């Protein structure tokens, strides 16, 4: 069975709560129709089969998002452990499950809104706390100041940011041990240097990253 799947843009956007349930079901029915038409011997049962999380490939946009969130977390005073405090939009997406519809085309995945553990994660205190902090950050102030609307050529906070480096491609270091890393994780793109580190990565960091 070929498990390689491409997360389509709609699905990727649904990670951030954009895609609605109707969208997903539309995709399912369309996929079902197509799957029925295809004559490659697919079984016709409507049984949905879960793909394990470990096989879900993380697309480039999400990888960039996670990397940016990590950099952002370096600027905070309090510890933000991804997955525990629910920083960012990472919470809801977890409840969506990737499901293989066997009637669908090969490799097409559908999101089924999960019902499990919906209210379990965030306690009210945490949510309120987060809201209070969000109102008083520099980024919030920056948004309110509208300095991006300043006339062109005016030097502002935004134009003062240093540009990218002229030096070549970024160097790659193992996310587990810190040495140079020739390999990358097929799922999430993080680097590792050896079989041993790969195992550690798969066990600890790879799942955490999207979770």
């Amino acid at each position: 069975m070929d498990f390689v799947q491409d997360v389509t843009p709609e699905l990727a956007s649904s990670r951030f709560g954009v895609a609605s349930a109707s969208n997903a079901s539309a995709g399912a029915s369309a996929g079902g129709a197509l799957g029925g038409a295809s004559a490659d011997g697919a079984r016709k049962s409507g049984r949905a089969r879960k793909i394990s999380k470990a096989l879900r490939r993380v697309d480039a946009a999400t990888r960039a998002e996670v990397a940016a969130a990590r950099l952002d977390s370096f600027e905070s005073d309090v510890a933000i452990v991804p997955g525990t405090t629910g920083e960012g939009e990472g919470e809801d997406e977890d409840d969506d499950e990737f499901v293989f519809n066997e009637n669908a085309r090969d490799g097409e995945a559908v999101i089924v809104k999960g019902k499990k553990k919906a209210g379990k994660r965030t306690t009210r205190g945490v949510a309120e706390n987060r809201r209070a902090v969000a109102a008083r950050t520099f980024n919030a102030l920056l948004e309110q100041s509208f300095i991006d609307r300043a006339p062109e050529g005016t030097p502002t906070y935004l134009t003062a940011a240093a540009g990218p480096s002229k030096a070549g491609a970024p160097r790659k270091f193992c996310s587990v041990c810190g040495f140079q890393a020739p390999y990358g994780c097929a799922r999430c793109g993080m680097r590792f240097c050896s079989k041993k580190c790969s195992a550690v990565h798969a066990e600890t960091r790879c799942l955490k990253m999207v979770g």
Partner: protein
Amino acid sequence: MAPKRGARDGARAPSTAADRPAASSLRGDVTVVVDLGGSSLKLCVAEDGATATRSAPNASARVKASDGAGFVTLRGEEIDGVVDVNGLALRRPCDRGYVVHWEQQREILDDALRRTLGVDPTRCDLIITEPPFALPRTREALDEMVFEYFGFRRALVTTPAKLTKRFADFVDAKKRDAKDLCVVARSGVVLDCGFSFAHATAFVDGTEVPRGIKRLNLGGKALTNYLKELVSFRQWNMMDESAVIEDVKEKMCYVADDALAELEKCKAKRGGTVKREYVLPDGIHVLRGFVREDSANKRPKKKVPKEKKVKIPKKDEPEHQFLTLVNERFMVPEVLFHPSDIGGRQCGVAELVTQAVENEDLSNEAMRALAYLDVIVTGGCSKFPNFMERFERELRPLVSESYMLRIRQMDDPIQAACLGGVDIAKDREFFEKHALTKEEYLANKTSIRAAHESLEFEPNVRTGRLREYAATPNLKKLDKKRIIEDCEKLTPSFERDIIHASA
């Protein structure tokens, strides 16, 4: 412990003035210099001279009261006296280098001024720093705090870079030739690797070049958090121990000449010569962590009596917890030179300087040459061992060979800006010409606000923001000819355009 002050209505000075210590016991008629940093406040009374600078964390912390009942809030200097640093969480008024929690900032500053310095703000002048390109609302809030909450008589707002440059040229320069070309031409670059970010600021003729200010969004805080993340994944979970990790970073990290070569060294057995152990504070026997002395070279050599070796230290010292750092020691500061190592999109500090100099405002070759002649490095992150050597090695290949490069580091990178402020305060004429008085502020509040809103780099209304770092030096004997000659001497292949520089 002082009773909690009315923080919420802090903006109205008269109502809060009542419950403060008696103003009569405090000093007046002095100039206070405050370098309002993201990590620490550096402050002093200018009249006391350079030796009196104090530094206190610009933060507050809630810790258990010593009598065991409830919690108390510590601010500023009090935090340095905390007994148990484990789990000490600091709340900082600054986010990304700019103050956002103004009530908290006011309380911290209030404590620092009245208790630490013992001055009465309403009878004092002030020199205070603000990072470049502060947002209009941040600027307003600063003005409001200075004049309405504290009620300073006269204030001058400036950037740390200007004060550092002032210090480097007028105080520190005494060690060198005071008539040095860059002092006369009032040009150069200041690289300030601070806690929240690194700024490179190009100066020409005593003023900052608007497009010559470049910011790298990486500083000491990011490095600490990065180290925290590495350590937490590899050894102990230290995610709540910012204060401890900050100390680990300061004591153990260094800049490698060549990170990749250094990594190879780490692959030696047991981490080779790079490995160091840090004794973690346990709050009972060890209150402040320290680097374990003998951990580096002895162990691998004395392999044979292994069993004995293990037992002896246990008897000598109570069971300590160690934090072993190997490649983290240099890979963390390495991020400043290669932000792409952690996925940053910006260039490193060396390239930051070239971006600051090679911009459209400095199209003139001569100006660029003059700027490269005096690269001043300051800020807490420049205190990493080997930082300067590496910085020079990185910067030299990025700068055209026709420019001569001179790099110098401040002796005390953390206090330098504050000391520059002391020097400005001594120059009364310059200070009074540029400072904004309380009366002027209250009379022109709307126009000052409008100037902030318009994002003008050099506001045409007097807003109390300093433009130049110094008045034009006396050029009686040092005429432009001398500048040209010196410049030619120092930059061999440099001929044309020099006339423009002096024009």
